């Protein structure tokens, strides 16, 4: 055989081989065509149902075995195009027909079935998650549709707030000296709201009558940072109203069993962040200014 003839044979056989591979593995064919730019790559629109509900599901539950690092069954689910292409045995999603969609078939199998997806050892999809995928397939497995009627709401996982100690320290710096000094003067009364916050909580209720207006006035330097304050059972009076009114960050205030009156209530009406006030066992008769602002009022004439 001459060299050119041989080259031709090789080219032919190779082409035939690739052709057969493409024929029996449509996923491979499409991925090659798409990579070569000979076929349009289907994309999902940002904000679409696929992007907001389906893709996150795939990402958390499927990509470890069907993604860029590993593609079991030659199936990748880390992009809309890949998911629609399917894997070794062809397309796994048939738009409009969940029963014919191998992906849906596998995730609906009982956990004990060998072919169930995710396989045993990995957490199974919840019924809601399976429903979401089913509804999406029924609605055409599209990358465009934004909402699907009847789709169960997504389950939000709680995100624990992160904090950086250096940032917290910086935030605490301006009042740090005042806080330390007042903590020494009133042990057990002042504490930071949390380890990741510069806001303060004040609880003088256990001090009882020994804590009075003068003591409360001493807290003035901290006025902008106090979010919770409990002066129940102390000996404060309306004289402390201006100090309280100056605590602009107050969210929760307790003044139960104190000698305050409606005057203090009026002074508090200006506190924008205030969410709840306790006036139990006080002489307050009218807490309307606060209630009008939507503040939860305990006691204060509505017993």
């Amino acid at each position: 055989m001459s060299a050119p003839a041989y080259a031709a044979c090789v080219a032919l056989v190779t082409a035939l081989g690739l052709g057969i591979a493409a024929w029996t593995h449509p996923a491979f064919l499409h991925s090659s065509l798409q990579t070569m730019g000979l076929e349009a790559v289907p994309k999902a629109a940002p904000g679409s149902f696929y992007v907001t509900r389906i893709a996150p599901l795939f990402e958390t539950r499927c990509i470890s075995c069907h993604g860029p690092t590993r593609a079991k069954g030659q199936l990748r689910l880390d992009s809309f195009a890949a998911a629609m292409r399917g894997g070794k045995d062809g397309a796994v999603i048939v738009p409009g027909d969940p029963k014919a969609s191998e992906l849906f078939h596998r995730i609906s199998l009982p956990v004990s079935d060998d072919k169930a997806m995710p396989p045993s050892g990995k957490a199974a999809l919840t019924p809601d998650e399976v429903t979401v995928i089913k509804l999406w397939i029924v609605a055409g497995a599209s990358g465009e549709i934004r909402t699907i009627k009847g789709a169960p709401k997504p389950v939000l996982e709680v995100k624990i707030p992160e904090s950086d100690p250096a940032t917290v320290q910086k935030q605490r710096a301006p009042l740090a000296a005042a806080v330390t000094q007042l903590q020494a003067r009133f042990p057990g009364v002042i504490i930071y709201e949390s380890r990741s916050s510069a806001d303060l909580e004040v609880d003088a209720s256990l001090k009882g009558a020994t804590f009075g207006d003068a003591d409360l006035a001493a807290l003035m330097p901290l006025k902008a940072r106090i979010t919770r304050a409990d002066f129940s059972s102390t000996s404060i009076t309306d004289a402390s109203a201006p100090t309280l009114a100056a605590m602009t960050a107050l969210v929760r205030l307790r003044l139960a069993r104190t000698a305050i009156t409606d005057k203090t209530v009026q002074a508090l009406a200006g506190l924008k962040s205030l969410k709840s006030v306790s006036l139990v066992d006080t002489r307050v008769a009218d807490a309307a200014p606060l209630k009008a602002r939507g503040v939860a009022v305990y006691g204060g004439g509505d017993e």
Partner: protein
Amino acid sequence: MSDPQKEHVLVWDIPTRIFHWTIVVLVALSWFSADQGFMRVHLWSGLTLLALLLFRVLWGLFGSTTSRFVDFLHPPRKVVAYLRGHEKTLYAGHNPAGGWMVAVMIGVLLAQALTGLFSNDGLHFTGPLALWVSDDVSTRITGLHGTIFNIILVLVWLHVVAVGFYLLVRNHNLVRAMVTGRKHARHVPEGLNLSFTRLYVALLLLGLTAGIAAWVFFQGVP
């Protein structure tokens, strides 16, 4: 009547030949077992491959003349010249192009076996040394293991095409040579003086590499 012994010269020793064909079977077996999910078979064929490849490396240092790296690894200039057809030299063992092909294949297959040791399948099955590295590293190595597989496919194709060229165009049956160990006299240089290392050395080296593979296996046994 011509003497078959004189017409066909022994160039390949038994260990090299057995090595070659066993590798062919094991690579195919590894591919098939991975594809079908028979991971225990995959583990065994991979470890055997490891032992054999390590053996081949040692044999390339201590084996018969034609098996030694120093025999078939030539400087790049020579390879280019050979491919261009400028050279008329005959080679008993691998020619310059073939020689580098062999080296690359051994290297790539070894890389595949080694990456396999640290891989995981995301579920229950891990390579015997996978616990030596973090999950993250293991997953990345698994990715490499997958990529190298594609490279192996390409190399195998290249190898078959090259062997086919010699067979069909140059009338030089390399396949039979790798089975019988003999090439026709017209393909080998005159006045050959090949040394063939004794079989027991091969067995010793194989014992050593099998021991290494066994040790690797036991790292993965809890």
